[in-house]
């Protein structure tokens, strides 16, 4: 099966086949054979035919979307098969029309809101300041846009993943 794998937002295409606990895949015209065993819940030992061994922790964060950890290094990975690839493209188009949303990456507290609804902000301009673990972080606009809605108030505690600000265009 053809798979599109996004690692750290870089895309790679592979062709993979599963036989029991074995995976064969082709990447860059090279064939790989690996055996996969679960060493602890969520932990997998990948052993390639030529002997290379790596252990990976898989933390599922959404459908087809994982945080993988190799040697304490985090790799956000999204896996798309043929069908999902089409859907994803569609979503991208939708997104363009909608403008951007800023979500809280971690739980924390909103310390200061720097912009008002209706204001135009430039790319990388600060929109609000959030505090977590004794540290303050300025949250910046990912793209230029007009602020449509601010969902939070100053001193409000927010959960990871909650939408803070939304723009139009």
């Amino acid at each position, binding site marked *: 099966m053809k798979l599109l794998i996004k690692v750290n937002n870089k895309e790679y295409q*592979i062709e993979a086949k599963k036989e029991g606990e074995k995976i064969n895949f082709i990447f860059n015209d090279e064939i790989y054979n690996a055996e996969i065993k679960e060493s602890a*819940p969520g932990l997998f030992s990948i052993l390639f035919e030529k002997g290379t061994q790596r252990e990976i922790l898989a933390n*599922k964060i959404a459908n087809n979307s994982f*945080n993988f950890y190799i040697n304490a290094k985090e790799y956000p990975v999204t*896996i798309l098969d043929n069908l999902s690839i089409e859907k994803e493209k569609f979503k991208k188009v939708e997104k363009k029309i909608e403008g951007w949303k800023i979500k809280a990456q971690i739980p924390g507290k909103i310390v200061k809101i720097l912009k008002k609804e209706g204001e135009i902000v430039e790319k990388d301009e600060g929109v609000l300041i959030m505090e977590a*673990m004794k540290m303050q972080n300025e949250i910046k606009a990912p793209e230029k846009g007009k602020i449509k809605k601010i969902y939070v108030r100053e001193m409000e505690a927010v959960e990871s993943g909650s939408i803070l600000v939304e723009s139009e265009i």
Partner: protein
Amino acid sequence: MKILIANRGEIAVRVLRACKELGIKAAVIFSEADRLSPHVLLAEEAHYIGPAPANQSYLKNEEIVKLAKKIKAEAIHPGYGFLAENPEFAKLCKEEGIIFIGPNPESMKLLGSKIESRKEAKKNNIPIIPGTVEPIKNLKKGIEIIEEIGLPVLLKASAGGGGKGMRTVEDIKDFQSLFENAQREAFSYFSDPSIYIEKVIKNPKHIEVQILCDHFGNRIYLGERECSLQRRHQKIFEETPSVVVDEKKRKEIGEIALKVAKVAGYDSAGTVEFLRDEEGNFYFLEMNTRIQVEHPITEEVTGIDLLKEQIKIAFDEKLKIKQEEIKIKGHSMECRIYAEDPLKNFAPSPGKILFLENPSGPGIRVDSGIRENFYVPLDYDPLLSKLIVWGKDRNEAIERTKRALDEYKIEGIATTIPFFKEILKLKEFLDGTYNTATIDKFLKEYKHREEKEDLPPLFALSSYLILKEKEGTLFPEQPLSPWRWR
């Protein structure tokens, strides 16, 4: 005997260990966020002290002293941070008949004031960074001082902190406007326009000396620690001995450190901090009146358990170790492992630790405040643990640190482990020429090394999971993490 440990995280664990080895009972306190923290789970006695925010729990001095009396603890160990350098708390303990494990409140108060201790140092011929010791209020006096010590200089608000009212003067032409500027800002923030002038030490190294002083006037120094690897003035890595300190220099700064302690009437474990300029001059900066985060590297090269010595001193024991018995053997370094994401500008990364494997083997020690399944709260300092390494020389220590970092697996949240792997390859680190500006400079171009060799295993597992899911042999969908049941 019983000690109440008024702290959390790795330092509470460290104190617990020292108590156990001394045969002293220990009790810990915990906030609402810490009921299942390792310092609680390792303790045989634990008491709830309040809600998560520190000012409602770990900083509640009166409640803590009350608790100590209730559970019949003779002493309180404050760790570092929180109440450790609060002279009011030390005084309160004393008044209530509880031993505060630290220095007497008077010396703590004197040393806690940068200005007062700088004055006292100057009076006693201890080298300080050139500049004023008294606040100045007019331009003319400022120019005189600059003529004396040379440019560049730093203007600082007397009452200041946090960089407010601070200006660097590079050119005398700019002095007047910057001085007035700083005065204005100082006045608006602190209602006090007085300004200090201090010479700017370019590319300094931060080097400190560990000392032990008892209640009977015995004082020893235990060598230095170099703490120049800092991110925004926060130490992240320390080593001992320093590449730039030889036996003679060690004795010289050691004796200065003991002089500081003597002048201040200091009587506990403490650290005297110095800046070293590019010419090799040392200037007294300040004294830290607590056990420090980085104390273990001194323990590794001297073989002396500083925590146990600090506790024994507080219980009025005489220091048994003589200065001439202190021998520095080998080399030790410490990496501070923080719950911060180096790829996201070191944003805090609280969350659940899904997999934890500590390194071990020869020369490796981990002082840790976490374990698997622990949820790192966002209410406190993000220090998770300290990787402490000993080697027979600097080279072996470096190779071991690399090996241990490769073994060290904290997964589920982002940490500074991958960052240290890069730091250890830096030329300035390897040749020992690094200074307090090195990391901030390095960070401008920092990213994790792209590990091309990590891609095939990632692909293999990705394919495996997705194909298993299609087969229907994977566990059924769950709200959180189906492959991670805990």
